[in-house]
């Protein structure tokens, strides 16, 4: 699975990459900002986008909105990751089109499994709604 990961914290990017690539065998493109993601996303053609919320310049929501504009990215599932989870915020992210919100600190051992499950649920849901 190709995962586009946007996160400004370099260390978190490293931990996440190791967890997803080494443990789950995902193909991960890590970007340090929304801008960077925009330039590379189309070519990478991710199957899942993992977005940090609090980032300088473009935050998670803005990045999401911008990525949705790119050809082929409109239907890609998006999951937010945040250290500042409050109920009202979670609702905002879901309304913006995210399929889930993962709280930091996350468990690196189960992260890959978690993402796969979330995507399958999403797929099943969309199939159901298509019927």
């Amino acid at each position, binding site marked *: 699975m190709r995962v586009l990961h946007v996160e400004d*914290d370099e*260390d*978190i990017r*490293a*931990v*996440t990459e*190791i*967890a997803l690539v*080494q*443990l789950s065998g995902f193909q991960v493109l890590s970007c340090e900002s929304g801008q960077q993601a925009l330039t590379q996303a189309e070519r990478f053609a991710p199957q899942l986008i993992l977005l940090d919320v*609090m980032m300088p310049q473009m935050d998670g929501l803005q990045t999401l909105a911008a990525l949705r504009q790119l050809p082929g990215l409109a239907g890609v599932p998006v999951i937010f990751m945040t*250290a*500042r989870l*409050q*109920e009202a915020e979670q609702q905002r992210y879901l309304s913006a089109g995210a399929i889930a919100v993962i709280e*930091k*600190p*996350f*468990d*690196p*051992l189960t992260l890959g499994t978690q993402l796969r499950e979330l995507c399958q649920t999403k797929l099943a849901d969309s199939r159901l709604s298509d019927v």
Partner: protein
Amino acid sequence: MQSAVKPENEAARLAALYASALLNTLPEPRFDRLTRLVQQALHTPIVLISLLDEERQWFKSRQGLDVCETARDISFCGHAILGEGVFQITDALADPRFADNPLVTSAPFIRFYAGVPLKVAAQPIGTLCIIDSEPRTLSDAETAMLIGFAELVEQEITDRLHEQAHLQLAASELMYRSVLEGTRIGTWQWNVQTGETVFNERWAEIIGYQLAELMPISISTWQHFAHPDDLALSASLLTQHFNGELAFYDCKCRMKHKNGHWVWVHDRGKVISWTADGKPLMMYGTHADITEQKQAEQELKASRDQYQALVNNIPGITYRCLADSDWTMLYISGSIDPLSGYPATDFINNQVRSYASVILAEDRNRLTKIVERAIAERRSWHVQYRITHRDGSVRWVEERGTPEFSEQGELRYLDGFILDINAEKQLKRKLISLTAQLPGVVYQYQQWPDGRAAFPYASAAIEQIYGVKPEDVTADASKVFAVIHPEDMPAVVNSIQQSMSTLSLWRSEYRIVSKQGDIVWLLGSATPEKMPDGSVLWHGYIQDVTTTKQHYLALEKANQALQVARERLDTASEQAQMGFWQASLKTGALWWSPVIYRIFGFDEASTVPSVALFKSTIHPDDRQKVAQSELQAAQTGVHDVIHRIIRPDGTIRWVHETARMLPEAENPELIMVGSVQDITERIKLQQLKDEFISTVSHELRTPLTVIKGAVTLLNSGMLGELAAPAQKLLSAAQHNSERLSHLINDLLDIEKLVAGKMPFSFQQLIVAKELEQATQALIPFAEQYGVTLQLEPVLSVLRVRSDALRLQQTLTNLLSNAIKFSTSGSKVRLRAYQHDSLVRFEVQDSGQGIPEEFQPQIFERFAQAKTPQGESKGGTGLGLAICKELVEQMGGSIGFSSLPAQGTTFYFQLPVAGSEK
């Protein structure tokens, strides 16, 4: 020349002349016509009607002559009147009597004269004469003609006199008629024999008609309008007049007015002519309207009657008597009867007894002296004395009288007024006995300009108040002043001086020192009165107010304490920015303490608070919230809400309202009493804190994510095997990163809970499933401690109303606590069952129990128990505090029971699902 002699009866002649009223009158055509006829008939140039008075001849009519008079002594006529018939001078120049007469020798140069005397009332008052300047002699025919003309002149003179008499008569009749009209008197003429009657216009007018309306008029017209009752009187009076018994017919009777009312008339008349056989023929009379006079008479009579009634009804007795020793009464009102027992008639002219005889003997001399002095000084008197009633009792009377003098200054009689004051005297006696009953002293205090002072009257109570007897102070007040407290003396003296100089009410509260040495508080008040001798007399009352005063002083002290307490409260409420209010939800009336005005930004002086005003300040987004709280208050009696208000200047403030309301049954006005606190600053701080915590948690979690992630990955062994010590260190690091993560989560949770910001999503949860989930989650943890988790069977249908996540959090917290405090190898039991409408959850361990001293703080934040060995079990110290908040905010309760060395059972209960219905 020879003048004519005067006739023998000159005086009678002159009288006749004057009576003819011809002298000095204007020419009249009736005479001038005649003289012109004579001139033509006898062909003579001059014709005169000459009248001779004492000095001259004056011409009433003249033809051919310019002068109107000449002296009598040169007149030819003076001669002519002396004889009868024509006096003729044929040629004056030839007659020695006239030859040198100036009328002959100069103009009109008389040569011929012929005159005939004109006789009125047989006296020759003058002549008709003809004159010519040529000698001439009248023929017989001419002489006869002249005499005939003279007779015609005489006739004219007589006729003229008659005419004048008629004119005068007519004038005087007109005058009389005018006078009658002016007096507005009606007139009547009655032919007694034929009944023919004449009334004037006024006669008809008196009864409201015009004469024409009454036509044809006869004596029956009068009878028709006269009052039937008065006709007989009128007839009788007429008969008496006809008989000669009465000189006039004079009758006052009533006549019917056109408008229906009766008019009083005064008829007066007299028979003025009689028939040959002595019967009355013509009767003339007058008819006057006397209605007003009659009315005035009636009014006078009415007012006289009224006066009499008044005199009879006034409580006193009026009298007029002679100034003698008997008091001889000329008049005394009937009310003397009840007072003396004798009728008024007894006293009039001393018919039965004199007034002096009823005056009590002891008072008689004094009364006489007083009255005599008043008479001598020509002034009224005022005296009280006693009289003896017929029944022997003695009555007090008060008399005011005055002597009446004639214009010549002679004493005529005494007029007076006597009042029965017996009741008053008795009242006074009663009053005196009443004052004796009063707790205070009723007194009169008199002070003279020279400083002397006394109590002319004091009721017996003065002894209880001041310890002196009334007679001790009648002449000298000093004994009273001696007991006044020295500290209060100046104020008392000053207040008396003040009252004396301004004659205003004296009022003073002061102390005296009793004989026993006690302090007694007195309150006195008195009304001053200026006396003729310059002194001032007070009438007053003084009472002992010691008890009241003591109460008052106690009250004052209490008030002061209350004031202090109130000030403290005010200060506190000021500092806390907390105001108080009271509202009636029924009437909408609202009272605010001063702080509230400031909180809401209103000016206290110009704002009238009301429930409506308050509602208008609520932020639109918070109105629903406030309304809900009020609704809740109606049911629970408690109102507690935090909301925003918008001040008049547009600023927004946060306020916290709390209030209590009694149930409607006990509180018909729906009175709500509450407080309002401005918590804007607190809210702002809260927001800052929220912001801070949110930021901090993010800042903490970001590195934690890295550490925990890295350590976990390394520790998993998935990235390669590590040496045993390294593995051990990594385990410690991972364990502590998890602990730190928990701490952060717990901190955020408790913060949210305490702030009331934890969201709950209630559902109906199957209890068995929830317990199973919690147990499964903690099995690995329990294994670390060597503890077995034992889930006891639960009814599969049992459901609880709760938030799934928070129920798990609570169960996990309690279970992990139980595991931590259990000894290895022991069991932790978990069970749940229904108890009434609640589901009770229990977590039981078999540990050491909770130390007694720690039990009260067990649910407090950061409270952490230690084992008896003093070792800490780790954790955040927030777990139980979070559990308590969670359970309570989910509508439940939490508690525990613990026995030393026997373990602890934590329990909480939540509503059974469906129980809320």
